[in-house]
């Protein structure tokens, strides 16, 4: 087993770079402005980030906006599944390039993608720290030791494994932007329904998405109502008791709203099915693009699984 001693300054540079990357994502995503007024913020209507808006740019004109939503969903979901099955750096790199290219073509705000990435960056950073420390050493693994800290050793294979997971997560997260933000959410859900997902589930998702904003608003108002009477969330039985009452009241109010919404639906002729005016018409061009995406995903997967055989086949 080989041992590499990393000087402390190199470790500091690596940690600083990782922190800077996360911080830039966080700042680009506008997370720092959450809940605070600022005279300098842009007029981007997408900036309230506590619940992601899924169809703010649904009316653009990019390739993804024009693509039939059913074909788009099938293709991108298939590509995502293939991407998470990849194991080698080169193929993952290609997957990352495809995802980044898709984001650029879709023209969705980079800020939204950054926000999505920053939301999971904490978990990914933890993986990057924990896995090198916990992955068992095998024959041939490289041990990395910090200069002056001999009792703490990292497994280089752990870094590689964590890096792969990070890459897969980034590919899927970035692909969600062209998938979800290039059509109104109701159109996306109609397409999902046409692809065979149960109607009831689709309706529930649509209603959930609509009322999560109302629910959030109600929750914020109640929280403020507690805060202005001195409540501060601390560790202790009193806080737990107040939080229990708060959640209970939210639950009761949500139940009552559910009943009222259902009654309002009945009064407008609801009989169990949400009517929809969405019509889909996939052209040969749409199917051709889907075939290209599926082909590319399969190609990457094949390259990843049978790298040697493919190289031999191509004469390398």
């Amino acid at each position, binding site marked *: 087993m080989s041992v590499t001693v990393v000087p402390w300054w190199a470790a500091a540079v690596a940690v600083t770079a990782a922190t800077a990357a996360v911080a830039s994502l966080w700042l680009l995503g506008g997370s720092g402005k959450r809940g605070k007024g600022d005279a300098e913020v842009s007029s981007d209507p997408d900036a309230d980030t506590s619940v992601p808006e899924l169809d703010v740019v649904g009316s653009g004109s990019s390739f993804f906006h024009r693509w039939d939503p059913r074909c788009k969903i099938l293709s991108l979901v298939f590509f995502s599944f293939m991407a998470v099955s990849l194991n080698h750096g080169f193929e993952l790199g290609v997957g990352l390039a495809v995802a980044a290219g898709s984001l650029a073509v879709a023209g969705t705000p980079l800020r939204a993608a950054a926000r999505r990435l920053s939301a999971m960056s904490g978990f990914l950073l933890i993986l990057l720290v924990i896995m090198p420390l916990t992955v068992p050493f095998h024959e041939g693994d490289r041990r990395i030791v910090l200069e002056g800290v001999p009792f703490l050793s990292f497994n280089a294979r752990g870094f590689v494994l964590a890096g792969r997971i990070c890459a897969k997560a980034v590919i899927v997260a970035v692909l969600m932007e062209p998938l979800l933000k290039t059509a109104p959410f*109701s159109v996306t859900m109609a397409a999902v329904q046409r692809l065979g997902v149960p109607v009831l589930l689709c309706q529930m998702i649509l209603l959930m998405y609509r009322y999560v904003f109302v629910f959030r608003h109600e929750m914020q108002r109640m929280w403020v109502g507690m805060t202005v009477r001195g409540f501060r969330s601390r560790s202790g039985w009193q806080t737990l008791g107040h939080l229990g009452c708060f959640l209970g009241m939210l639950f009761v109010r949500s139940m009552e709203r559910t009943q009222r919404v259902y009654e309002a639906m009945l009064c407008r002729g609801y009989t169990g099915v949400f009517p929809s005016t969405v019509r889909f018409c996939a052209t040969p061009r749409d199917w051709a693009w889907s075939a290209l995406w599926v082909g590319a995903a399969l190609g990457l997967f094949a390259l990843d699984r049978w790298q040697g055989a493919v190289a031999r086949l191509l004469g390398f």
Partner: protein
Amino acid sequence: MHWQATPVAPRSPSEAVLFELDDVSYTYPDGKEALRGVSLSVFEGEKIALVGQNGSGKTTLAKVLCGLISPSRGRVMFDGRAVGKDALSDLRRRVGILFQDPDDHLFCNRLADDVAFGPLNDGASSEQASAIVAEMLDLVGLGAHAAKAPHHLSYGQRKRAALAAILARRPSVLILDEPTANLDSKNTEMLLDVLHRFSGTLLCISHDLMFLYGLCRRAVVLHRGAVHHDTDFEALIAHRPSLRDHGLDFTFRFLCCSGHHGVPAHGDPDPEGFSRRGQERFHHESPASKPLSHALHSFAHPREKPVSDSMEARTGPPLIALEDYSYRYPDGTWGLRGVSLHMKDGERIALLGENGAGKSTLASILVGIRTGRGVYRFRGEIVRGRVSKELWRFVGIVFQDSMDQMVSSSCFDEVAFGLKHLGFTGSRLSRRVHEALARVGLDGMAERVPHHLSAGERKRLSLAAVLAMEPRVLILDEPTANLDPENEERLLGILDDLSTTLILISHDICFVSALTDRTVVLHRGCVVQDLPTAQFLMDDRLQSLYGLDVTYHNRCCRQILSMHGA
């Protein structure tokens, strides 16, 4: 039962009966009897005001009429057919109901989808539905917002959108539950304009009798689930004993309007005294041909204590001082722009402005919930850090929706919530809670569940929860929303007794005139007027500016005053 005002004139046999209710009763699963032996006929094309105190059964009756609940006893006929499973779809197609909260109606992710929901369920083609959507959204002035998600609309816009969604099915009967609750004057007028164009049968549940006055010809008064009056609307509002018996006596409002002329703003409210003085005035002169301010002026005598006197008498640094304060929401919208505001201890100011003018934003800054750019001083100290964290001890706020403050399982705990955080325990806590409950007329209700209280009781409970903490500054956000006139009058009495510094956010000019010395008008986040309330009330031009248009209410007020004077 007291004398019943003029009974409704018998209809000629040619008028078609739309609804026929015969001895209808309804009891909720928890045993609460909401309707008791209601017998009622509704004729085609009638405009009926369904009024009564909070909890009198109005909403339950509306639900029975549109087939959402079946009566426990009695019979409901619609257009000659008994309302049952077979007739339900026809009933629901022809009867539209608008609930109080517009979010209950807007369950789709685009406004156009919400409006198209009904027509599509009725079998309209996509093209027909699109045409209806365009027509209805234009009707309510939201044609440009068809693709927007409901949560991106203001409250007033959502209310109008909900009405468009109901009207899209072209109902022949429209039932409205508190259509004007929380709406500013501009949105109320837009709503009224749409309703005037509706030619079908209209049943309107509201505590806003001024609004109903311009709309309805017949009044049905419910009292504890039973029909107590069925009469001409004008006859009802002209007969004060009937109004008073059902908690609907809104005549105190006329006296509020003239409060700055004749009634000491902060003295003993003495409602009976108000009404005696008022009635005497009403009988002296008919103001029908004059603007409201002039009409009121003719009754009035000079204010006993001018506003400026009380303000000048207060010395020392201002309690609240905002200097060039701006706040911008994370979505880029300006909440406040360069606001400067000074308030002295004990002062009472009204914050006026259309929906979205920045009133609630300003309140949330004053209470320390939001932080913007500029200088905010409280008692001379800049509000930041420790001062900001401790602001809740001195500044209390009562929200528009009192349910937002209800997080406890009993009224006692609700009032004790803030006190416990102030460090009260044991007998001191108990005494303070009971004092606060008694102050708002809720003594003996300490163990009741807040959720089970009526709207008026809940509002008073939320006020008690804040008053118990004895704040230096009390902010009230739309205190009259959803209250019946009796509860409004009671609330007015409670608030008038307070000696704390008061900031009143309201669209209700009556409360503004009765409770405040000074009026600050906000428009698009800026302070556009800061003047004595009396001066504001005397200036009809000011009242029509900045989306505050109260001319409709003034007009109704004039006509009702003249009726009382007749």
